[in-house]
């Protein structure tokens, strides 16, 4: 208990809020690194995931491959990449963490598209929509809650795991953990961890909100009619398929 108090004492000490190694700077760096990682992961995983979900092909390959990627130890990968490139900037951890974030984003993308009911797709085709129109106007809007769910779970992992990058001379909240343990400054370590937790929770909350907001109005309206018998379930994920990320 005293440790927790000391940690909050550390967090609220004004000394720790100033300068290039202060808490605001580190939070800023951490958010920047995490956003960059998520952007990269989305740029790679979303097109692939959509292609798989839309076409239904190479699903087994994607599941297997992204499962294997999940098993890569991030810390080992950071050190390995830094050594083979003799680069101690944010490059190596950026690559390692992008690899960490790809599997959940990919899974969200293809399972989101797969979860879309066939009936509206068939209807869209029947009224003459092209493949691309079906994708952008029907499949994607309906899949979006699950797609964002994938990014949400990736964001959580990325925010938590960027801390290991601090074994290299980079910024971010991991500095408090790695620098703290080097001099047995436990309030600093615990304080840094608490900030990471808060950041992760805030991100998770924002993504949860986004998931709610992107549910198309038609779907919500339909759901209200559906739930007149009771069973008020959360909107937008009544039929999460197996293998989809937790939303």
């Amino acid at each position, binding site marked *: 208990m005293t440790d927790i108090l000391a940690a909050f004492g550390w967090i609220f000490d004004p000394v720790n809020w100033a300068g290039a190694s202060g808490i605001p700077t580190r939070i800023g760096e951490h958010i920047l690194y995490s956003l960059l990682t998520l952007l990269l992961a989305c740029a790679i995983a979303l097109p692939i995931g959509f292609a798989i979900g839309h076409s239904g092909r190479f699903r087994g390959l994607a599941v297997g491959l992204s499962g294997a990627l999940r098993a890569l130890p991030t810390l080992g990968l950071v050190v390995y990449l830094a050594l083979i490139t003799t680069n*101690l900037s944010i490059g190596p951890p950026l690559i390692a963490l992008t690899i960490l974030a790809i599997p959940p984003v990919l899974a969200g993308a293809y399972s989101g598209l797969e979860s879309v009911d066939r009936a509206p797709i068939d209807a869209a085709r029947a009224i003459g929509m092209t493949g691309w129109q079906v994708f952008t106007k029907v499949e994607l809007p309906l899949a979006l809650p699950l797609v964002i769910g994938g990014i949400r779970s990736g964001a959580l992992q990325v925010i938590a795991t960027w801390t290991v990058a601090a*074994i290299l*001379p980079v910024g971010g909240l991991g500095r408090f953990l790695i*620098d703290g343990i*080097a*001099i047995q400054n436990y309030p600093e370590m615990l304080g840094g961890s608490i900030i990471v937790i808060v950041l992760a929770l805030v991100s998770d909350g924002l993504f949860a909100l986004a998931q709610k907001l992107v549910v198309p109005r038609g779907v919500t309206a339909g759901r209200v009619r559906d739930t007149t018998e009771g069973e008020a379930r959360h909107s937008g994920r009544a039929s999460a398929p197996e293998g989809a990320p937790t939303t």
Partner: protein
Amino acid sequence: MFASKKSRLAAGVLAAGALLALSACSSGGGAFSTSSASSSSDSVTVGSAAFGESEILMQIYGQALAANGVKVDYKPSIGQRDVYLKALQDASIDLIPEYTGNLLQFYDKNSTATSSDDVYAGLGTALPKGYEVLDQSQAQDADSYNVTKAFSEKWKVTSLDDLKKVTEPLTVGANPEFQTRPYGIPGLKSAYGVTATLKPISDSGGPLTVAALKNGDVQLADIYTTTPAIKDNDFVTLKDPKNLIAAQNIVPLINTSKASAKVKDILNKVSKELTTTDLIDMNGENQGASKTQPDAVAKKWLQDHPIK
């Protein structure tokens, strides 16, 4: 499903129990052998910390003693200092290679001694009763500031004192604690008037730190003096005329009841022969391409330096 889970759990418990029993046996055996051996002082259990250099030194001590008719048991890789010093105090081991500066710091947190002689003298009073250090070797494995050969030539820098001449900003690659340690950033400023900033690299002067120095991310790097990479990369280790960094001479730490005249004599001869260059070479054999085992590395050193 439930039954199989239960039986698996039972198997796990059994396995853990067996492990516990085994470890109890081995520690019991150790205690027995030391207590029975106390009548004949020429039987020594030598231990080592959990890293290559300590194991090599353990093997050198052990093999030199064995070659001279002392009965030797080995307990390698005991762990970090607090663990193996406990093992020394509960008599599971009698002898272990140590580093003077860190050993003194362990028993006397307030010591400010840094030169080899001061540190060694400090150990005389700081060690707990019943334990002593024998003669210290000139061989050292201490923190050291290193620069690239090109940097050394460009600025004519061979000592920390020369760093004042450097007009470009200096960064040091070292573990994060370098920011606050007296031999780190604050010491550079107070002892040599040099302002430097730290790039924290958490691998204790390992390959990442070496890479940072090589590619110019840092101008100075804290690397242990016996690291083969210093020689391999032609790094220049800066001299420390003001003894900013505490000496870390190799020294045998021994249970006084085991330190017979014969044992002392053999170990003192080993310490006399051992040099820092020897340690670099031996670490190179151990860590390098050949990955020679510590016992073989030690055997070779003893062939070149017969202890009689």
